[in-house]
């Protein structure tokens, strides 16, 4: 009962401390919020980059064989089935390919104009098994063309890793910024109330009753800032989603290719809130440990 009463009083002291800080709270929360918004945008950007790379790289263990007109697809399928590394073989007939093309360009061409080849899409178990098999099939001389962009995939992989690296670097940088801002704020508040805190020490007020309110104050700064940053990000995302995305991506048939999904956005907001609270509480705890020797 006594512990609970003390806990409630520590929170009450924090509330009083916030009230006494007045407009300084708005300034601190604005700075923290701006930092967290940048942090959130970077996270979204990083997720988008990874998504593009993943979408493009999703087919890196697949390749397509465009057959010569004289070659019956079934005979190639039978031959491919003899390779243990082949896990899936799919045929797109020249008629299906023609129908899809007409649909894409939205022009009803005459079927006599169909120049599409029969296509076999081959999926292998591992990425490194694709290139040797492609080379082997090339010796069969049954193809007009084999689509397998090995160099392109390699470059995309580099971009993906680079995006993750940049994202991590920026995240660390912004985490440090959040930490430093909050640390300095709490330190300023402690310095401003130095005499008062000395008085409390001499009155025999316990260590955690003096330090606790500052730590809670830091946590509240982090919580409010991250929730505000999250709300602004959500609003920005909704605005962009219903305006730019519709115009740019839907018309190009690139829906969900680039934009983070609702689940991903929720994850970003949760990370943002947790990071805001974690860094703020850690920094305020550190500030009280360093500046308040009771």
């Amino acid at each position: 009962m006594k512990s609970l009463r003390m806990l409630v009083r520590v929170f009450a002291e924090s509330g009083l401390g916030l009230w006494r800080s007045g407009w300084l709270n708005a300034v601190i929360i604005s700075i923290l919020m701006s930092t967290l918004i940048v942090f959130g945008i970077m996270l979204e950007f990083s997720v988008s980059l990874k998504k593009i790379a993943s979408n493009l790289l999703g087919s890196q263990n697949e390749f397509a064989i465009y057959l010569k007109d004289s070659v019956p697809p079934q005979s190639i399928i039978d031959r491919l089935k003899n390779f243990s590394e082949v896990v899936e073989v799919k045929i797109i007939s020249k008629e299906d390919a023609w129908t899809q093309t007409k649909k894409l360009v939205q022009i009803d061409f005459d079927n006599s104009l169909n120049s599409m080849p029969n296509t076999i899409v081959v999926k292998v178990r591992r990425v490194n098994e694709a290139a040797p098999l492609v080379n082997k099939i090339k010796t069969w001389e049954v193809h007009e063309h084999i689509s397998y962009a090995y160099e392109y995939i390699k470059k995309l992989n580099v971009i993906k890793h680079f995006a993750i690296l940049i994202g991590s670097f920026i995240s660390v940088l912004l985490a440090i910024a959040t930490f430093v801002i909050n640390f300095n704020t709490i330190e300023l508040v402690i310095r401003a109330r130095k005499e008062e805190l000395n008085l409390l020490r001499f009155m025999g007020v316990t260590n955690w009753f003096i330090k606790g309110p500052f730590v809670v104050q830091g946590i509240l700064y982090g919580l409010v800032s991250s929730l505000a940053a999250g709300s602004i990000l959500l609003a920005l995302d909704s605005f962009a989603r219903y305006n730019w995305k519709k115009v740019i991506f839907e018309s190009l048939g690139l829906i969900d290719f680039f934009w983070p999904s609702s689940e991903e956005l929720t994850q970003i907001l949760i990370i943002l809130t947790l990071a805001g609270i974690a860094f703020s509480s850690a920094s305020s705890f550190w500030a009280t440990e360093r500046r308040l020797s009771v």
Partner: protein
Amino acid sequence: MIELYRVCKEYSNGQLALKDINLHVPMGQMVFLIGESGAGKSTLLKILYKGEEFTSGRVLIGRVDISRLIDYSQLRRRIGLIFQDASLLPHLTVFDNVAYILRAQGASEREIRYRVEGALNVVGLLDKAKEMPQHLSGGERQRVGIARAIVTNPPILLADEPTGNLDPVNSLKIFQLFKEINEKLQMTMVIATHDPRVHQLRKRIVQISNNQITMDTEPSNLPMFGSLVL
């Protein structure tokens, strides 16, 4: 009981603040530390509540060697402190200023009300409980400081120049209040002051000059000051 044995205090720049201080204050006694500014009165008080460390010697409070303490708050909770400027928290009412330490110690609201009203009653400020410190006179602020110091009923009360900012009339009232508290509550009191009129209270007086005790007079040895006795 407060006991100091050959206590010395020297600052890092080599300046001596206290030299070979031997002092015994029995339980319930009221002692005035007198001496000019810079003599070492405040330093001696600070040593008692661990506001400053001493360089050598021994200090016992209630038979506990305070140099061995790790958690100072245990010691400080047994001491009521009164400062020259009262040092009230400006954002709290008189009641909340006095109640602060009780709240920090986890006392119930009922106990807080009972104790705070009792302490304010002792200093005669019960009717000012809801006032803010800035609306009080200097004498009243000091009384609130005294109420805050006695609210936990500590066995020891230390006061550092409690009348330093007050006019002669209010100073006498404050000294009279200390005397009443000492007699009613039997608190051990050490009061640092440079007010010469403390002789009139007929209490023990310890004089510090040049960082040493130069005089220690028991009440029976003090001369009477006739009509000025409080």
